[in-house]
């Protein structure tokens, strides 16, 4: 298989307080009261699974005959994300030269006037799914 390069966006998204709260609950560590009221640094993960990005991944994974397994992840912020603010994000799905079983997704988050706020990248390895087990 040979994942091709795909570019998605820019897509605008406003960070809503209730979405942040729900995401914070989903990543909370039981027993720790860590609520900060800030946007969690990993919150843009929800944008990486935008329907257009899902479609690109479905294409790469041959519509379910492979699954992507995350092998590396990186993010870097230049400024904090703010609740109530609108951002633009762009996603690129990149083939890994010389590694047909791997691909990378890179995302850039900017303000509407183009100021870069954060960068994300994730590297996946494709695992083939065996046929359904008989029993």
């Amino acid at each position, binding site marked *: 298989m040979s994942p091709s390069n795909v570019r998605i966006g820019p897509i605008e998204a406003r960070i809503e307080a209730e979405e942040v709260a729900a995401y914070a609950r989903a990543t909370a560590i039981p027993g720790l009261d860590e609520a900060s009221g800030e946007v969690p640094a990993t919150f843009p993960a929800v944008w990486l699974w935008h329907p257009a990005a899902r479609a690109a991944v479905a294409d790469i994974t041959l519509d379910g005959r492979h699954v992507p*397994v995350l092998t590396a992840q*990186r993010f870097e912020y230049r400024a904090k994300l703010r609740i109530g603010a609108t951002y633009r994000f762009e996603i690129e799905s990149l083939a890994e030269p010389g590694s047909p079983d791997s691909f990378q997704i890179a995302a850039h988050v900017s303000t509407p006037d183009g100021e870069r706020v954060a960068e994300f990248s994730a590297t996946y390895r494709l695992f083939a799914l065996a046929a*359904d087990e008989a029993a």
Partner: protein
Amino acid sequence: MSASPAIAVGATIEPLSVGPISPAQIAAFADRSGDNNPIHVDEAAARRAGLAASPVPGMQIVAWLHAAAARFDRAIDVTGLSTRFLAPVAAGETIVISGRIVQVDAAGGRAVMRLFVKTAAGVLTSIAEASLALPPGQGRA
């Protein structure tokens, strides 16, 4: 944890234990993040991929790594995190996150923390490096 007067090379974080990580926690994260990869929520799909059990999503572990780094000192900002996943963490396992400051640039107000994720059995599953922005006056090489 209170703010320390100086962040120095060799300083360690209080190990953070997470778990046992329940399938419900994984499903909640998968639902909220939109990650519909079946191996995380369908054990049969995980087995078809050659895994013994459904693995915890990598981004969920990244969120906990960030929390572990941020708890070190509330006065610092975790501005970046780079994680490499070495082995899957299966649903039902407990992980322990440890970390140590490995680099301090006091003049530049920056530091680097290296983090390790191990299962309760001691298997190293992830390594990470966090970039920290220090408040003025903190940081000692």
